[in-house]
């Protein structure tokens, strides 16, 4: 794991949490959208908070794809679930919402889960990773025998 890869995982977490928050904030300004008034959808997208939320969620999707290109799904999902914790902390300390003891327990469990998975390998099933390794070890053996 390089620093850049940790940055990508942080990007998945932060972009998802920030994007969801912006969408939620924007939707509270625009009000409910119904199927009978689809013009409301256009008004919603033109709301700067919702537009910013959509951009952030696109950034989330790009980072998520990036992470999945070099790490297992069962590594990326728990590792990036810190976003839930981030949202709860924003709710408590920025929006001054009440966070119940049960929610704090939830935050502790998610953090524990992230700690568990982060201590292990990021990749266990990359087919061409193994073949790359095999090729590399084959080359080193060949060069070793050549020497």
């Amino acid at each position, binding site marked *: 794991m*390089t620093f*850049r*890869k940790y940055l990508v995982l942080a990007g998945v977490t932060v972009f998802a949490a920030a994007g969801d928050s912006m969408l939620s904030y924007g939707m509270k300004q625009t009000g409910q959208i119904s199927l009978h008034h689809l013009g409301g959808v256009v008004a919603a997208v033109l709301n700067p908070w919702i537009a910013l939320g959509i951009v952030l969620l696109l950034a989330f999707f790009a980072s*998520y*794809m*990036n992470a*999945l*290109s*070099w790490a*297992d*799904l*069962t*590594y*990326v*999902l*728990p590792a990036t*679930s810190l976003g*839930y914790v981030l949202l*709860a902390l924003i709710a408590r300390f920025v929006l001054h919402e009440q966070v119940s003891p*049960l*929610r704090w*327990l*939830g*935050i*502790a*469990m*998610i*953090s*524990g*889960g*992230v700690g*568990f*998975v982060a*201590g*292990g390998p990021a990749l*266990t*099933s*990359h*087919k*061409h990773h193994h073949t790359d390794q095999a090729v590399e070890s084959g080359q080193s053996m060949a060069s070793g025998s050549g020497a």
Partner: protein
Amino acid sequence: MRHVYTWGGILVVTCASVVGDILLARAMKQVGDFHQLWRQFGVWTIVGRVLSNPNFFLGVASMTVGFFSLLFALSWGDVSLVAPAAASLTFIGNGFAARIFLHEKVDRRRWIAAVLVATGVALLAG
């Protein structure tokens, strides 16, 4: 009857999300490590490879089905039940599906992580 609809909706959301995640993960493994590709060939190679991968589009389609079924499920059941139940079940479902379809080595450490996160998510929404 409402319960049946709600849990049916949760099940559909979960299945669509798991299928979407598995297809996207498979697509990205087929595309290859973004960092290596970026260094060797530049960003347009990554864009080209992603956009020419059928699993990517199937994954996005499945995620879209998941999103719209979530909207329907939310109209049948409470958000405090539907959202955390679907998110938690997706975590557990992904553990099984990744093991079967992506051949990931989901060891005890990862199962504990998945169960902790799934329970934590359920508690956060409670």
